């Protein structure tokens, strides 16, 4: 959004750095800073989903919207620790999408209907936590706890069987 140009004198890693486009290009360029395995995988899945052909479901489905994909990735960054399991991402028919984890400990499904409009659900977990379905906007601390539960249990099983 900043209009005036400043010579920073060093490489920029600013929180607010402008995105520079190659002149004449109308393509959006992939630029991420993946630090976790799940992150790179999620970006890859979302890339495919924003490129789906209209009617991919055999009816009139749209590709996942760029806006919803961006919001979904921000949501994942808010809720996944470094060792979170890789989510599975399923498209909806209206540009929406659903992020899913299916583990031996239970299932989590996060339906991103639009930015700030998420229907979150988890099945009964093996530790007895009852199934729950809630609506969220942009504060995902509650579902961070769900993801932690399935992450920790998965690590425990991996460690036990190693």
């Amino acid at each position, binding site marked *: 959004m900043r209009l005036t140009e400043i010579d920073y004198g060093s490489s920029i890693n600013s929180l607010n750095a402008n995105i520079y486009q190659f002149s004449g290009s109308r393509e959006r360029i992939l630029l991420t800073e993946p630090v976790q395995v799940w992150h790179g995988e999620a970006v890859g899945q979302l890339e495919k*989903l924003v490129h*789906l052909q209209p*009617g*991919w*479901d*055999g*009816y*009139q*489905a749209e590709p996942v919207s760029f806006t919803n994909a961006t919001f979904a990735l921000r949501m994942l960054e808010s809720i996944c620790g470094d060792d979170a399991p890789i989510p*599975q991402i*399923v*498209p*909806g*028919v*209206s*540009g*929406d999408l*659903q992020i*899913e984890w*299916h*583990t*031996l400990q239970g*299932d989590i*499904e996060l*339906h991103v*209907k*639009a930015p700030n409009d998420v229907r979150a*659900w988890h099945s009964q977990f093996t530790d007895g936590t009852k199934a729950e*379905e809630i609506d969220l906007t942009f504060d995902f601390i509650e579902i961070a706890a769900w993801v932690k539960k399935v992450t920790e249990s998965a690590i425990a099983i991996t460690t036990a069987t190693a």
Partner: protein
Amino acid sequence: MIRRISDKYLVVDPKIGGKRISSMAFSPSSGSNGGMSVDLQKLIEGAGIDARTFVTTPVWIGSVRLKVGDLRKEKLKVGFEPTKANQFHGEVWGNFTMEKKERLKELSEWFVPIEDVSIV
């Protein structure tokens, strides 16, 4: 009625040791009047067309079948909504909670099965 199941709707579930259909396959479109698209088998066959051929053309996609009566028992409405691309198109409307979507999966049976994939 027939609901097409794209491979984009398939997820891996270690609890069944393989792939199954996501709940998203039984979700409506957004918007105040959004419904879940279906193909009306009776109308297709009434027009003298093989239903399995119809729902796998021009692109092969798996599909499941549900009984209209079962949907109505779940308090869902089914209606005929032809489109330019599909004269046998119908829609299902209602409140698609997670519980409802799981019930729809349980009530479904394969019509054009996807190999090695479970419905539930």
